């Protein structure tokens, strides 16, 4: 078991570096690899590097958030947008576009409304100072549906260009428009993920249920609040900067559980590397497959993720 997981992580690491360099070398502009490092291409090199880093950050943030929610909910099918961040941010960005806010402020608007949504979701769920996790998911789903309805309503009474802008934003892109925003999000995600590692044993025990966690000496409500806070910040910041990117938070943890087992220390390490590789690959396809047209990355992750996921699901059914 241990040797097997060590080998898997080694393979993933090799894949990570291979993909990293591939993503730096390949791009919309056909520049021979040898010349890429010459001074006149420095800007392009920098932009590509930034994009690759964005893909890595997004992949890690979403998949680690997925793992946390899956453990807290004891359901391997939980995904990071369950708490309503995506439609919350969506509404904010839509309103900002309609109000003609400059593009620099779009992510901030999205982040703000995502946080407001999260706050409402928690307010609805909270009971006697506790957060019953299933009520939380239910209130997340309810608010999501309501906000999505508002989004559709607003789009349907406004002009078509807005629709295109919003759709584009919703389906996600790894294009970094504003360096300061990217840096802020990168700090939030890496800090949050590091904190999650800190709680890997608690996550193991949460998989057995909250009562088991009490029996193991964990202050359940406190740990839960910390973890939910981390996940909320990560998903809200990512969704407002790069849109909604589905399946990463679902498929990568699931695949890693099959390869590495359920213990979170290894699972988190494997997931961090694997989600980076996956997102870099998806972004590479998104920007090169139909160049110069760029496809929203959410389309690629969904098209790759859905069949992969169905295969895994069927395999699991066969085992059981």
């Amino acid at each position, binding site marked *: *078991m241990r040797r097997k997981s060590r080998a898997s992580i080694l393979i993933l690491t090799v894949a990570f570096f291979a993909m990293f360099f591939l993503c730096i070398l390949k791009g919309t502009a056909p520049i021979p690899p040898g010349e890429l490092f010459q001074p006149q291409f420095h800007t392009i090199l920098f932009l590509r590097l930034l994009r690759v880093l964005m893909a890595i950050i997004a992949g890690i943030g979403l998949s680690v958030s997925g793992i946390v929610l899956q453990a807290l909910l*004891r*359901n*391997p099918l939980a995904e990071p947008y369950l708490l309503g961040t995506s439609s919350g941010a969506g509404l904010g960005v839509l309103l900002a576009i309609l109000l003609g806010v400059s593009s620099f402020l779009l992510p901030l608007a999205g982040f703000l409304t995502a946080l407001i949504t999260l706050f409402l979701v928690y307010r609805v769920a909270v009971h*006697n100072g506790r957060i019953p996790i299933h009520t939380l998911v239910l209130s997340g789903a309810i608010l999501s549906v309501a906000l999505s309805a508002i989004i559709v309503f607003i789009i349907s009474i406004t002009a078509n260009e807005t629709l295109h802008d919003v759709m584009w934003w919703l389906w996600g892109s790894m294009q970094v428009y504003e360096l300061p925003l990217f840096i802020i999000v990168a700090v939030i995600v890496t800090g949050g993920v590091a904190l999650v590692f*800190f709680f890997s*044993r608690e996550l*193991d*025990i949460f*998989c*057995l*249920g909250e*009562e*088991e966690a*009490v*029996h*193991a*000496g*964990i*202050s359940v409500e406190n740990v839960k609040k910390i973890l939910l806070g981390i996940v909320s910040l990560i998903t809200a910041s990512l969704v407002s900067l790069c849109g909604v990117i589905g399946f990463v938070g679902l498929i990568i943890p699931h695949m890693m*559980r*099959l390869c590495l*087992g*359920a*213990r979170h220390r290894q699972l988190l390490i494997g997931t961090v590397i694997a989600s980076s590789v996956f997102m870099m690959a998806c972004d590479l396809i998104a920007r090169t497959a139909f160049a110069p047209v760029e496809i929203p990355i959410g389309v690629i992750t969904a098209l790759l993720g859905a069949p992969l996921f169905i295969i895994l699901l069927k395999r699991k059914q066969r*085992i*059981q």
Partner: protein
Amino acid sequence: MSTALLNVNDMNAGYGKETIIKNISFAVQQGDFLGIIGPNGSGKTTLLKVLTRVIPHYQGEITFENTLLRQIPLRAFARKVACVAQESTSYFSFSAEEIALLGRSPHLGRWQQEGKTDFAIAEESLRATDTLLFKDKDMNTLSAGERQRVIIAKALAQEPKLLFLDEPTSHLDIGHQIQILNLLQKLNREKNLTIVIVLHDLNLASEYCNRIILMDQGRIFKEGNADEVLTYKNIEEVYKTLVLVHKNPLSNRPYIILVSGKDR
């Protein structure tokens, strides 16, 4: 001050506004093998949840080792008290050994990996519950009885001095029922492990427990040894059904015989 390991004094508890446990007082002595019996809904599980601190709100006073329960940090408590709850449903893909190792977590620091001793203790617990054979197997592929024994192994790996169990034998065949209770009895006698166990099977309670609490509607109806508690009068009054109480010829303890409809 008393010498009791656990002391419950005039305790009320419940969920939300509903009070389920009413004015309960009892003590658990070091080395006890205490059975809690009673009909469905009599508050046995709720009582256990209060004592294992899953339900944090209660009125009255509970002390463990002469310290108020509220003042003992959860982690310190978990190093001394373990609990085998009713069956869990999802295990992701944890192996039996990984589950048993999780029992070591209250003893481990945040960054501390499980060491040789921890693996040895987990293995010993798996052996004791007859589950060592499938230590590498996925929990989801085990039978309900096998899983239950792994969960007991996890509680043993916690190395508690007080062990709570909530109907641990309800999923087990008679062979494994006896095996688990024999194991508990051995730990109780040889290692002085104190045991508080909720049981549905009155005959198992009679055979193994040195003291029994019979609960009814959130109150203690009767407390004492098997002979004092398991009388046909007590049982008929609380369970509202006819029984015969004989003596088990091997152990000389009360043996309850159910009376079915056609024989009444």
